[in-house]
Every structure is written in C-alpha cells, then in structure tokens.
C-alpha cells in the first residue's frame, strides 16, 4: 500500500478544519435560542448556564456526528435535554403528583367569574396575569409536560422536532403539550380572585 500523498492529506486536514469552524460558528449563532429554552427547563439561571456550557462542550467534541443541512437547533436541544435528564433534574422543585385535569376554558372561566364576562373582551386581559406568575407557573408543572410546552410554545419547535428532541412519538408530545398547557392555566388561575 502506498503512502498517502502529502498534498492530499494536507487538503483533507484543511477541509476538515474549515467544516469544523463552520459548524462551531453556526452552533454559537444559536446560543441565545438554546439558552432561552434551557432557562425554562431548569430551576435557576446558574443551572441553565452550566447546562448550556455542558451542551456546547459535548456538541463541539462530537461535531462530526452532526449531519450538515439538518436542524442544528434541534440537534443541540437533543443533547441538552439528555444532559438535563442525566443530571436528574436535581435542582428543580416540582410536585411529584400529577396535576388535576381542569378544562381548557378553566382560566378564562375563572377570570370571567371574578371580573365579569366582558373582561374577556379587554385587550389587556392576559396582562392582568403578572409576568412573574407565568414563569412561576411554568416552573411548577411536571417536568415531562413542561419540556413539551417549553419546546413548542417558547422554543417554537414543531411537534416533529420536539418528538425527536425528547425521543418520544409525536402523539406523546401532543398529549404532554395539551396537558402541560392545562396545568399551566391551572397554576395561573391560582392568582385570580375567586
């Protein structure tokens, strides 16, 4: 077997270095979006920062397993959610019990009961709920439901991408999403006067 041609080998190394640099640039351009999702999957800013750093360390080490042209944001989030599960979601304070299933109109009905049916016509009706209460409510829903809500409703992932990230069938994503949204409204309803 002949020795590899030094010029060919140099070209191969240069191409690989260029591909890697492109991969890293693209991954870093998504960092803000990755952090935004991470922040709502975990309990604190510090934990989100750690998780994003671990995600990028793993992504940069295994860059060659990424298929160019596929959804890199979903690929990064897949790494992140796996790491989050591996960490045992240790810092989260979430109830171990499943929430009671209230209906989809529950929050609107409660607001209407408290302030009159016409309140639902007001442009600022949802702003009566504080921004902090949304964040708190999200942190209180069971993790498997929250993952689906955060990925689809905050991360803007499709059902299919969310299914790939969470490694579950699309039907499971839909079911968790529906239940997560209901649980979220249930928590938000707690701040509405009876």
């Amino acid at each position, binding site marked *: 077997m002949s020795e590899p041609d030094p010029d060919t080998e140099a070209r191969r190394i240069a191409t690989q270095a260029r591909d890697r640099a492109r991969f890293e640039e693209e991954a870093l351009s998504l960092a803000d979006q990755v952090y935004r999702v991470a922040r709502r999957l975990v309990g604190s800013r510090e934990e989100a920062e750690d998780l994003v750093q671990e995600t990028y360390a793993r992504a940069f080490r295994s860059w060659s397993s990424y298929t160019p042209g596929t959804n890199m944001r979903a690929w990064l989030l897949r790494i992140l959610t796996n790491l989050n599960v591996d960490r045992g979601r240790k810092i989260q304070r979430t109830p171990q019990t499943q929430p009671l299933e209230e209906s989809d109109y529950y929050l609107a009905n409660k607001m209407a009961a408290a302030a009159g049916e016409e309140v639902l*016509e007001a442009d600022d009706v949802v702003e009566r709920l504080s921004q902090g209460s949304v964040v708190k409510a999200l942190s209180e829903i069971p993790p498997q439901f929250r993952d689906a809500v955060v990925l689809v409703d905050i991360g803007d992932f499709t059902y299919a991408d969310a299914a790939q990230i969470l490694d579950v069938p699309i039907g499971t994503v839909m079911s968790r999403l529906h239940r997560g949204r209901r649980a979220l409204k249930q928590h938000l309803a707690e701040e509405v006067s009876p």
Partner: protein
Amino acid sequence: MSGDPCDRCEELLQDFLDRTLTDVEWQEAEGHLAGCDFCARRYRFEESLRRYVRTSAVERMPPGLMAKLDELRGLDASV
C-alpha cells in the same frame, strides 16, 4: 355536534390554535364560533395567552456566557 356544543368546541380549542384539526373538525369549530360569543371570547383569550406566555418567559442569555462558549471551540473528541 353531539352533546353540549360548547364542550365540543372546548375540546377542539388547542388543536384549532395549533392548526392540526381535520377539515371537518375545523368547519365544526368555525361554525360554532361564528354564533357563540362565549366560546369565541375564550378562543381569543387563549390566543392572547399563548403570545403572553411566549414573551413573558423569554430571558436573554447572561453577559459573559457567549465568551465562555467561544472558549470551548476546538475541544478534542477524546477529552
């Protein structure tokens, strides 16, 4: 619609907003919403709520994190 039409409309709410209803279900929901203020108000409320949740929950990346991520470039696969 069989049973209480508002109950059925409520059942279709999330898929309606996600645009995942079948054509028949879509027509069913739209037909009911055209004549039912109660459900129409709740559908509009839910749409606003989704937008509010999205904007309320966004937190920008802390300053300094990007520099830390940038330092990770070039990590060796064997490390």
